[in-house]
């Protein structure tokens, strides 16, 4: 019986310790800066357009092929006396969050620093009722970055 008493002492000692549970919706854990929720596109504030030029690099590199990229000529390119130096700009960009496996390869291959991993709680809380709502189009992908909530973590 000595062993049983010993295990009851262990549970008794835990009885005295402070509980470790955190009440989720009220108190959020502070996420580390390199947290990887889902990819999203970044917004270039000073010339007011997305960084992405629609070069298909991420679409080709994605293991699960969850991206669809369509590019177009950039209306406010310097040729049409606009501020931007980008000749091409993204027209429509879909990421299917239902297929994405968050492997960060798209961020690594992008040579325009246009895509980043969402490291905020809003990126994690993406539960929907219908699977097709998980397909994010361009405005949705740009929304958080446009609102300035994303500090992109860059691997040096």
């Amino acid at each position, binding site marked *: 019986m000595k062993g049983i008493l010993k295990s009851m002492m262990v549970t008794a000692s835990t009885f005295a310790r402070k509980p470790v549970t955190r009440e989720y919706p009220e108190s959020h854990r502070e996420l580390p800066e390199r947290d990887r929720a889902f990819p999203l596109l970044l917004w270039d504030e000073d010339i007011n357009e997305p960084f992405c030029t629609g070069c298909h690099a991420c679409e080709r590199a994605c293991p*699960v*092929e*969850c*991206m*669809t990229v369509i590019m177009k000529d950039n209306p406010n390119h310097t040729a049409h006396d606009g501020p931007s130096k980008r000749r091409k700009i993204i027209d429509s960009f*879909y*990421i*299917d969050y*239902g*297929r994405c496996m968050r492997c960060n390869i798209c961020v690594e291959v992008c040579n325009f620093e246009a895509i980043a991993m969402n490291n905020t709680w809003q990126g994690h809380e993406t539960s929907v009722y*219908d*699977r*097709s*709502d998980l*397909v994010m*189009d361009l405005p949705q992908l740009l929304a958080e970055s446009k609102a300035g909530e994303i500090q992109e973590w860059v691997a040096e």
Partner: protein
Amino acid sequence: MTTDETNGEAVEETPPDTFEGTLWPDVNRALSAVDVRPERGALDLIVHLPRKDVIRGLGMLKHDDELHFDYLRSLTAVDNEDEGVDVVYHLYSVSKNHNLTVKTTLANEDKVLETATTVWQAANWLEREVAEMFGVTFNGHPDPRPLLMPEDVDLSDVHPLLKSHPFAEIDVLQGEGLGHDRDAPGDV
């Protein structure tokens, strides 16, 4: 990279490669009754045996007190499209702590081979998986049911890991077809 534990430095490729330093001398002696073709793998020695006396060779390797390969590490197959299917046995000796890879090539027409469960019981499930994935039939296997594929559907001629088996088409949920309307064609 860590060097092979039996030889000191890597032997550079001198034609013909004498494989000194690897297990080849002992393996050649053990398998003298069988014609054997050695090859150098990335980490272990590879030995090719003809189809008809693979099991006999494996038995010799196991019961040879010098080599004593009592541990079947893994049994798998590689589909080389037209050259047929290679069945690969990775062996290891717990007491002697050395490794060997035995390969045999089966022509695509008759992929039939004796079962290795007579030598090691570990081969039971591994052979069932190779049978259903590559279409190789192992004669004398005690329990030839499919291992990973569903039993209730008759998939006896479906062998997914063959190169001829196509990749499933990913139904495109993105692009013009979808976005937000419910009854999109690709909707799953």
